[in-house]
């Protein structure tokens, strides 16, 4: 049931135009941030694993764009863009990657395991797919408390093979929870190609087994993602139950920066790069009558400034003090919500 994007008329109201330009800015910012991170990693300024989402920006942009404050998002390890879309300060994000004390996890974990619940972003673990039951629990709370929020859980087609994913979708279906499952199908689980991961082509086909609908779109086409996300998130928010959106895509870089991805065909990469979401959206904007060259220049300037400011902030931030290793292990007495302050209790007493 692949859904095609709806042709949009040029005579749209001004707010929509602003919105589309904002989406373009976000995709450009996420791409620039990703590219800068890869460069910083080569310069040894970022240690540890870096899992680039370059090539997959349209998915996080399109899915997060219609979200509201209070919605709960569990990104996967490649979804730097989710943090940016949810309003997390890019400087703190960059500081996180550099292990600085000002990063989201205050130096405790690398890359995207640091979450920011104030912005509704839940930090994942390396056990892919394990955030799906958590997102389901968030949606359970929304149901119990009658909050008009949705939980969004991103996962890859690789994680789709894990039992957590099955357990989460099954339960969400039983209770008709407001969960939007988003599968970023980039065809490779590290080196293992899709055909060795599953006997079907579309992960979305599984949704029907859990009692809800699955949709497939091109994850490299922002308009296609947006057409599904705006419509389906609204339906889920209205209480029509969970939904699975599968976005077909491709990662440009290896599984991590250490991976040259020699298991992939060069031709395949070129083919997918020709479907890059950013020029594709530029083409659309141009056809709608925008002066794309000047828009691109303006936006590039903004984006570069933002990324540079993030790098400057991160580089000038201090590393954590050694003894902070024992902080934030336990919540101190009285702590109960997502916004309590740093605990210094390390022995768990109380």
């Amino acid at each position, binding site marked *: 049931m692949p859904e095609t994007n709806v042709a949009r008329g040029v005579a749209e109201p001004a707010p929509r135009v602003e919105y589309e330009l904002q989406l373009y800015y976000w995709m450009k910012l996420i791409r620039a941030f990703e590219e800068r991170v890869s460069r910083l990693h080569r310069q040894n300024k970022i240690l540890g694993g870096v899992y680039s989402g370059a090539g997959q920006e349209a998915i996080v942009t399109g899915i997060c764009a219609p979200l509201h404050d209070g919605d709960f998002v569990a990104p996967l390890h490649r979804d730097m863009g989710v943090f940016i879309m949810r309003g997390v300060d890019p400087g703190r994000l960059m500081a996180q990657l550099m292990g600085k004390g000002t990063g989201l996890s205050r130096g405790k*974990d690398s890359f995207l395991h640091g979450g920011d619940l104030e912005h509704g972003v839940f930090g994942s673990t390396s056990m892919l797919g394990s955030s799906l039951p958590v997102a389901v629990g968030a949606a359970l*709370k929304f149901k*119990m408390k009658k909050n008009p929020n949705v939980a969004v859980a991103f996962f890859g087609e690789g994680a789709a093979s894990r039992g957590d994913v099955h357990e989460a979708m099954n339960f969400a279906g039983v209770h008709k929870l407001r969960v939007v499952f988003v599968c970023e199908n980039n065809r490779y689980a590290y080196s293992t190609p899709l055909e060795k991961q599953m006997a079907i082509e579309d992960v979305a086909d599984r949704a029907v087994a859990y009692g809800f609908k699955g949709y497939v779109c091109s994850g490299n086409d922002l308009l296609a993602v947006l057409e599904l996300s705006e419509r389906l998130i609204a339906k889920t928010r209205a209480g029509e139950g969970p939904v699975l959106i599968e976005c077909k895509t491709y990662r440009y870089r290896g599984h991590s920066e250490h991976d040259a991805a020699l298991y992939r065909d060069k031709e395949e990469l070129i083919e997918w790069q020709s479907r890059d979401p950013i020029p594709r959206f530029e083409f659309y904007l141009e056809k709608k009558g925008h002066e794309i060259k000047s828009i691109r220049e303006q936006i590039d300037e903004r984006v570069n400034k933002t990324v540079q400011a993030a790098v400057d902030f991160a580089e000038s931030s201090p590393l954590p003090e050694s003894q902070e290793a024992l902080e934030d292990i336990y919540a101190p007495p009285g702590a*109960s919500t997502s916004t309590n302050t740093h605990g210094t209790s390390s022995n768990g007493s109380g």
Partner: protein
Amino acid sequence: MEVTYIKAINSALHEEMRRDENVFVMGEDVADLGGAFKATEGLLDAFGEERVIDTPISEALIVGAGIGAAVLGMRPVVEMQFADFISCAFDQIVNMAATLRYRHGGKAACPLVIRAPSGAGVHGALFHSQNPEAWFTRVPGLKVVAPATPYDAKGILKSAIRDGNPVVYFEHKRLYRSIKEDLPEGDFTVPIGVAEIRKEGGDLSIITYGGTLGQSLDAARIVEKEDGLAVEVLDLRTLLPLDREAILATARKTGKVLVVHEDRLTGGIGGEVSAIIMENAFEFLDGPVRRVAAADAHVAFSPPLEDFILPSTNKIVDAIRSLAAY
């Protein structure tokens, strides 16, 4: 009023759900059936299906969804139908819940209780007899408790529900209906992280918890009567964090320590308790720290096999006599 261990758990759940509307329970067969052991009996009628949730057989989901609700301010009490099944939720507990606050820079809390009916001696065989506490007692970010009396079962469960951290709550199945205690009316809690002296004595200390407290007290009474030995019995109650002060105080007082638990010998809490004593009270010792624990086997089904594997009052008596004579 005299109540059983299982009733103490049940009344803690009723009272906490009444006290705080953010408390809810979730697990396999907890609603209509009231739990395989009736720990959640009556909750469905009292609080409705929104707060008393039957789940499919999905342990990872049960814990994971508990985590998701907990980080948004709820206080879920999730049940593993048998502690043996907790292995299916291991990743959610040790990787997802335990690291949650750490990886969110201290700006998240996970007030989640995972109830786990554990223990042997009920002919449960390999997969209904396990004592898996030591899988969790070395995981920072978790708290692990193992109450041995109805009073503690109720008071510690209330503390666990009010705690801001994930707490794994091991309740011993053999104790459910075998022990009773007069409990005070009204609200009371028992602090997590504090051990309790159950019997004073100056000749030798037993450090134990959970299912072997009763056997240890029986053994202490036997040697007191037959050998004139005054044995002190310390009930750990919390296994993470350990009450190091209480452990060291009794070790320094008697100079001879026997650690008793129903969990297996190798890698059990006894090793850690012993190391704490060796490192901090070595000069007070008059003999080696010894352990009585389950044999390093799976908990077998057939009675002669199960009896051979598990600790017993007689085995504890023998160990006391041997250590006292050292």
